[in-house]
C-alpha cells in the first residue's frame, strides 16, 4: 500500500515540476521523476505478498510463491530507454540555450503561453 501512495505522490511531484517550473533543466528532472514513479507503480502491481524473485536458482523453490515477472520485464527495458531519451532531452536543452541564451521558458519566444 505504501508503494502505491509513494508512486502516486512521485508522479504528482513530477507533474507539478513540469507544469509550474520555468527552468528547462528542472522540467527535465520532473520528467525523470514521472518516469521513475510510473516504473515503481508498475513493479508494485506485480508484487505478491511473501513472494520471492522469479529466479529458480535455489533447489526446491515454488513457482506459486514468486512475484509476477511481466511488470519487471517491462520496466527493465523502460529504465534504459528513459536514460537515453534523457540524453536526447538534455541535448535539446543545450541547443535551445545556445540559440536563445536563456533557460527560462517564459523568455523563449515560441514557447510562450
Amino acid at each position: 500500500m505504501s508503494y502505491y501512495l509513494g508512486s502516486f505522490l512521485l508522479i504528482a511531484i513530477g507533474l507539478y515540476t513540469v507544469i509550474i517550473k520555468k527552468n528547462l533543466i528542472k522540467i527535465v528532472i520532473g520528467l525523470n521523476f514521472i518516469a521513475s514513479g510510473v516504473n515503481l507503480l508498475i513493479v508494485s502491481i506485480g508484487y505478491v505478498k511473501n513472494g520471492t524473485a522469479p529466479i529458480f536458482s535455489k533447489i526446491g523453490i515454488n513457482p506459486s510463491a514468486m512475484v509476477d515477472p511481466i511488470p519487471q520485464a517491462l520496466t527493465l527495458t523502460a529504465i534504459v530507454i528513459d536514460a537515453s531519451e534523457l540524453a536526447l532531452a538534455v541535448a535539446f536543452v543545450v541547443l535551445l540555450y545556445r540559440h536563445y541564451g536563456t533557460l527560462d521558458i517564459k523568455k523563449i519566444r515560441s514557447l510562450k503561453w
Partner: protein
Amino acid sequence: MSILDWIYLAIVSIGAVLAVVRMVKGPDVTNRVVGLDVFTTITVALFVFFAMIFDRYIYIDVALVYGLLAFIGVLVIARFIERGF
C-alpha cells in the same frame, strides 16, 4: 527476523536519516555531495541486509553494482566543482 536484525536495521535507518538530514540542511553543494556519498555507503549495507533476510544470496550482485559504481557519480560532481572537465 531476530532481535539482532532489528537492532541492525534501526542503526542503519538512523544513519540513512542523518545523511538525508545533511542533504536537506547542507548550505553548500559540497555538503550535499558528502551526504550523498555517506548515503550510498549506508545503502550498500542495506542491500546486503535485504539479501540476508530475504534468504536469496543472488541479490548481493545489486550491492556489488553500487559498491563499484557509486563513487563515479560523486567523482563527476567533484571534478565539475573543481573545474575539471
